[in-house]
């Protein structure tokens, strides 16, 4: 798999209020293309539909209309091609406290996707691969036996990243991966993601509120407003020369990205 593309995707939620049903258009004719090795930042205010786009890409929701194309062919929801797709596209969730099962060890969280990806692996091979994944996210190997509640937020998010890398994906969707973390460790996690992205030539959809990190870590920025993409272009262009009112507002609110980054690095 190489290219993921959304074409005129619309997602409407049906809301029931008593007997009446109303429709809420969470995603409104969104089109973009995510090639390997490229990072696209998806920026927008709360409720603008960012997570819904992530869910559509993860097959947790189906679009109301429009199409999602994988290498130019419509996405399959069943069968062998769907299984291949699920391995190729992985996700890092926003909340590191909710994305790990409190009942299971770190080892379980990493071993399951490894086993699903390599059903033929022996127990030792799975353990080796789990240890390697932990090393890749700069965690000590003896974290395998620990439970999530024994880890800090940053460590949990590293585990979540390792889990996403386990099936050797081509594309990573990161839904506000650092917004729940302490400011002091955000940059560390983002740098780790950027390093992994380069090493594996991943295509990354980086969902965020933060224009400063969006500019620093992404090639393109896509601005979402009420479900529709109102601005899409190279990162510097969008920040320095915003066209849409809403982007201008955002850019003003974060006037000096360099300073924000310096703050984060503190």
């Amino acid at each position, binding site marked *: 798999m190489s290219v993921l593309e959304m074409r005129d995707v619309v997602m409407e939620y049906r809301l029931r209020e008593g007997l009446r049903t109303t429709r809420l258009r969470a995603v409104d004719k969104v089109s973009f293309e995510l090639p390997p090795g490229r990072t696209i930042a998806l920026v927008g205010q709360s409720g603008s539909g960012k997570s819904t786009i992530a869910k559509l890409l993860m097959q947790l929701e189906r679009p109301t209309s429009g199409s999602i194309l994988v290498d130019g062919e419509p996405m399959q929801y069943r069968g062998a091609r769907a299984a291949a797709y*699920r391995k190729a596209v992985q996700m890092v969730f926003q909340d590191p406290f*909710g994305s*790990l*099962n*409190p009942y299971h060890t770190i080892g379980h969280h990493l071993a*399951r996707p490894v086993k699903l990806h390599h059903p033929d692996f022996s127990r030792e091979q799975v353990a080796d691969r789990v240890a390697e994944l932990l090393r890749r996210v700069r965690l000590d190997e003896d974290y395998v036996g620990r439970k999530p509640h024994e880890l800090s937020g940053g460590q949990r998010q590293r585990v979540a990243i390792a889990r996403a890398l386990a*099936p050797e994906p081509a594309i990573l969707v990161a839904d506000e991966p650092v917004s729940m973390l302490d400011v002091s460790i955000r940059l560390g996690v983002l740098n780790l993601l950027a390093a992994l992205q380069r090493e594996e030539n991943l295509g990354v959809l980086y969902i965020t509120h933060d224009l400063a990190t969006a500019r620093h870590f992404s090639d393109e920025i896509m601005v979402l407003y009420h479900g529709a993409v109102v601005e899409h272009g190279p990162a510097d262009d969008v920040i320095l020369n915003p066209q849409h009112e809403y982007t201008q507002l955002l850019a003003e609110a974060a006037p000096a990205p360099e300073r924000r980054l310096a703050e984060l690095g503190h």
Partner: protein
Amino acid sequence: MTLKLGVGLGIAGVIVLFGVIGPLVVGNPSTVRDMGLTGPGNGFLLGTTQTGQDVFAQLAYATRGSLIIGVVVGALTLLLSSFFGIVGAFVGGWADEAFSLFTNIMLVIPGLPLVILISSYVPNKSIWLVAAVLAITSWAGSARVLRGFTLSVRSRDYVLAAKISGEKRWRILFVEILPNLIPLLASQVVFAVIFAILGEAGLSFLGLGASGSFTWGTMLFYAQNGLALRLGAWWWFAPPGLAIALFGAALSLINFSIDEIINPKLRSQTRAERNKWSVKA
């Protein structure tokens, strides 16, 4: 292990042991003798009934009977409420709608009148039938609690993550969701057991219980019929009454401890501690 859990398990354990081993060592509880209403001692540990039956032997058999009711109802409640609560919420869609409609109907059917109705239609009830009737009228509440919790667990990110990594549905249910429900399930079952034993005692006391078998409730019923209270034969009605109270208290203690395990906030938050904290802050 907390003190509460220890005391609860201790009392419940003694009673269960007595119910299991007791009937094997005591004599026939129904043997009628020519020595009615003798007090404790005189060769009978807990005295005799009006017709000279050994109260201690009856208590042993009654303990076994009440425990059987508790276990059967606990198991049936676990099965029914898990099926209609957890599976419905997990599958979602029309299955959930249908299951929760059925649960709600069972919930609003008043239990006691239904039990009385069934009891009056079936003259010779075994202890198993009574247990089944109690279970059928009591699982719905648990099912609702379980459904609510399953719905919340089902939409947690770790379940979505398992789905994304391509886990099979049954594996998501049994490996990712169910373990997180175990404390809740345990507390529901313990509650069902308390309900069943008390419910059976109530039914038997009203004369609607199992016929021809001993339970704590039937013992109280016969004691009441034999005017034990008025004749001052405390050794006849006190043991089964005390057994019910002790076992109920023990299970409640266990239940509280499980609640504290589920919700650690309950454990250390006494009012005094909260106040101390707010003074400091």
